């Protein structure tokens, strides 16, 4: 092997550099503001100025920047951060993008968050892990609704440090009066938002004014440039006096001799020998070991992921919270909280959601929507529902008690999300204000019981699945298999079958055309009622005529209706002839028999077509399940 240059020089240079890195702090911040305020351009400029744009990126950037608004460098900086194709086409940022850069003094993780109103939820996402926020304002437009909304969300999520970047100052001729008006407007609005620091800086992200150092074009501004400010602003959280909180995340049991509880120290610190309580059961335990792969620790600090071994066998599982005696978190099934609604499906008191707080997941519902907060004026108003991007103050009841702290005291034990039980969408983010203790049982607010709420209590969505096809095509076999599968999953389904309905409800009907229509009408009405009760209704009827099937669909109204055509050739059905009906029809013993002496009008556009001669019933049922219930 060829001998390489001695590496010891590199090693000592690296070791020296690593020591420097250890002292370097990390600042997580986000940028927010209205559409077109220039957030992406600002971040692109920060990356460019910190020389983080690499040669190959710069080359492709210059190419892409043609036909766009560029600075003196001939670059559209926003192209650096607008990652998704759709955004490039629309020219707006539609999601949170995370960027990394560092200077001599600090490392930075930037969340670039969207300004477009429908994506406000992503801004809250970016804010939830940020120490500081840059609120961008277009100098030509001043403080807008979105500026207020975002600042309010920052305050709600608990971001304590804000930089007001008055951008595009070049487009108002570097006018000091414009800047001062915006700053005083914003300070007036933000005075009740609880920010610990607020600095206003006039900048032009495109031209680079006041980004790194003072701009010669704004001698009237004597404060620091944006980057120097970010490098030095103090956002430290005082951990001293924080109470110890350890949400158990995973029970670590490699063998019978070891049982540990893995998790991340949410706050405070813990040492071997310390006494603890399980928040829910109040059972006392003592820490005997703090285990990590790097060796055992005597003390674990906030933020460390460790495994605790305790002195005795106590029933502890994921979701339990360990704390010191005398300072355990609250434990109750009712809280008052503020929620940001993030889904088009609006919030409804009484509906059951899943609440996830730390490692605890429990069913919960909003028992009262006390008021919503107008994000422009911060005024309260009464409301019956919460719509997307609205902020409300609610009381929540959980099905079983949870361990929590007010958010102002502990972010981990005070924050939660609400999840839709059907679609699994994240519906809302919430912060707990305080726990509620009530002597009586819960008095749920009255709410309208309708099909949706009935189906929700069954954990499903009501619908009608209408099977059509020749006698012997396999409709009922497939419907039966599908029903079994649904019931096995805990869903509630029922089959309406041609035979069983004709023996009871429709036993007065014969096979004339009028009777056939009436037959279908009655079955369709029964199916609608059953679906309205929240059930998944599987209707297995020959239903040979298009008009009848259209009637059934019309009767279903707004209930999801799926027409399934079991397409099995007549010859195959006749060969099967499970009930001997074809033989009888051929002998003329049954009149108006579909396929023999009466037509079958195949659907022109069935929602699902199954090929009964080519596939096994079990596979057809599986196909259908995947299409209708597989998400």
């Amino acid at each position, binding site marked *: *092997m*060829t001998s390489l*240059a001695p*590496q010891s020089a*590199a090693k000592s*240079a*690296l070791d020296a*550099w690593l020591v420097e890195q*250890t002292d370097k702090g990390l600042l997580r911040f986000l940028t927010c503001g209205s559409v077109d305020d220039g957030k992406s351009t600002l971040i692109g400029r920060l990356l460019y100025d910190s020389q983080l744009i*690499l*040669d190959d*990126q710069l080359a492709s950037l210059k190419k892409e920047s043609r036909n766009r608004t560029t600075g003196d460098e001939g670059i559209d900086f926003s192209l650096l*951060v*607008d*990652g*998704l*194709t*759709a955004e490039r086409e629309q020219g707006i940022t*539609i*999601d*949170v*993008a*995370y*960027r*990394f850069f560092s200077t001599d003094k600090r490392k930075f993780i930037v969340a670039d968050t969207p300004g477009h109103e429908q994506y406000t939820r992503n801004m*809250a*996402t970016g804010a*939830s*892990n940020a120490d500081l926020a840059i609120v961008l304002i277009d100098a030509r437009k001043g403080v807008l609704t979105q500026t207020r909304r975002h600042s309010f969300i920052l305050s709600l999520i608990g971001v304590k440090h804000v930089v007001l970047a008055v951008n595009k100052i070049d487009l108002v001729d570097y006018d000091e009066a414009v800047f001062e008006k915006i700053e005083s407007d914003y300070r007036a609005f933000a005075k009740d938002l609880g920010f610990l620091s607020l600095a206003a800086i006039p900048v032009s992200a495109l031209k680079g004014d006041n980004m790194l150092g003072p701009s010669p074009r704004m001698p009237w501004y004597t404060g620091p440039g944006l980057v120097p400010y970010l490098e030095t602003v103090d956002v*430290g959280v005082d*951990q001293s006096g924080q109470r110890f909180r350890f949400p158990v*995340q*995973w029970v*670590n*049991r*490699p063998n019978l001799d070891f049982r*540990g509880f*893995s998790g*991340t120290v949410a706050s405070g610190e813990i040492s071997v020998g310390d006494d603890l309580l399980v928040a829910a059961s109040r059972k006392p335990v003592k820490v005997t070991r703090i*285990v*990590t*792969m*790097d060796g055992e620790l005597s003390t674990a*600090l906030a*933020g*460390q*992921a460790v*495994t605790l071994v305790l002195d005795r066998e106590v029933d502890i599982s994921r979701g339990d919270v360990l704390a010191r005696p005398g300072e355990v978190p609250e434990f109750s099934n009712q809280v008052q909280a503020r929620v940001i609604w993030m889904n088009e499906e609006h919030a409804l008191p009484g509906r059951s959601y899943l609440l996830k707080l*730390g*490692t605890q997941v429990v069913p919960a519902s909003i028992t009262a929507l006390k008021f919503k907060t107008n994000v422009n004026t911060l005024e309260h108003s009464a409301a019956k529902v919460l719509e997307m991007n609205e902020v409300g103050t609610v009381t929540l009841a959980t099905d079983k008690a949870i361990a929590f702290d007010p958010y102002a005291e502990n*972010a981990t034990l005070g*924050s939660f*999300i609400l*999840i839709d039980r059907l679609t*699994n969408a*994240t519906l809302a*983010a919430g912060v707990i204000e305080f726990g509620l203790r009530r002597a009586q049982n819960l008095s749920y607010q009255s709410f309208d019981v309708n099909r949706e709420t009935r189906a929700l209590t069954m954990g499903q969505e009501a619908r009608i699945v209408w099977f059509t096809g020749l006698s012997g095509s396999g409709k009922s076999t497939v419907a039966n298999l599908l029903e079994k599968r649904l019931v096995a999953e805990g869903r509630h389904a029922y089959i309406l079958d041609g035979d069983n309905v004709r023996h009871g409800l429709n036993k007065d009907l014969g096979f004339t055309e009028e009777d056939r229509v009436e037959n279908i009408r009655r079955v369709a009405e029964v199916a609608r009622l059953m679906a309205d009760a929240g059930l998944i209704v599987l209707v297995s009827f020959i239903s040979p005529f298009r008009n009848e099937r259209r009637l059934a669909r019309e009767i279903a109204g707004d209930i999801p209706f799926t027409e399934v055509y079991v397409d099995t050739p007549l010859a195959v059905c006749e060969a099967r002839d499970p009930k001997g009906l074809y033989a009888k029809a051929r002998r003329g013993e049954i009149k108006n028999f579909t396929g023999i002496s009466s037509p079958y009008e195949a659907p022109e556009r069935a929602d699902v077509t199954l090929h009964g001669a080519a596939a096994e019933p079990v596979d057809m049922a599986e196909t259908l399940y*995947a299409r209708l219930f*597989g*998400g």
Partner: protein
Amino acid sequence: MTRPTLSHLQSLEAESIEIFREVAASFERPVMMYSIGKDSSVLLHLARKAFYPSRIPFPLLHIDTTWKFQEMIAFRNRMAKEHGFELLVHTNPEGVANNVNPFDHGSSRYTDIMKTQALRQALSAGGYDAAIGGARRDEEKSRAKERIFSHRNAQHAWDPKSQRPELWHIFNTRLAPGESMRVFPLSNWTELDIWTYIYSENIEIVPLYFARPRPVVERQGTLIMVDDSRYRLEPGERPREEIVRFRTLGCYPLTGAIRSDAGDLPSIIMEMQASRTSEREGRLIDSDQAGSMEKKKQEGYF
């Protein structure tokens, strides 16, 4: 500050461990993608830390295109033996039957068949509901926007417009039947973080990252190592020996080497500090078409 606090790398490590544990606690059948590169080495190290003293409670899956560097395969097998994890290897059988290769089929189709399709086959066959990957947000523009827990529909596709909001460290891990989650514990790490962590934790990596004399040819300005006799040389062409290393590892005919004499970790890190080219430039697959990584991801690529 008088009280001790966690360093930048310690915080990143703790965050990744928390993510690993959340996967183990929340999913029925997780699997971890193991691509043998440096990020996978860090991922493996973090997984071992997350569950210690237990073993990693899920298998590691390697999608073998049959065109990986020989040194990668040897390293993979040795790691599995030394750390005692369950190793699964999958190759697209149709791709093998049709002799799909990077020369005749072009990098785009080859990658689709031997990586994306192969991955989907393996995930579907295994019925995995969570697949852990080593992607980082600093790697590429579309990755910068992905969640840590990233939802996939039953076709393994990503819909960037309907991502679930992800707040604090509360991860929504709920799935409908057939759906799955891609999970990225290294989301907040940078390339430099990865290297400094490898150095400070003394993590073993494939020697291809270190500069050594290797047989190379030049293709469109990219240095390609001739790793076996299947490489198609031009008439009269002979590989020449150069001192090179790799910044990223993939299929050898598609992975560019760089000229470097950085033969150990400190030299690599110091060289990187001075470097002016982004990491994935050496990979031919990203630059096939505009928005190409985002497109591949929507189709199911990691």
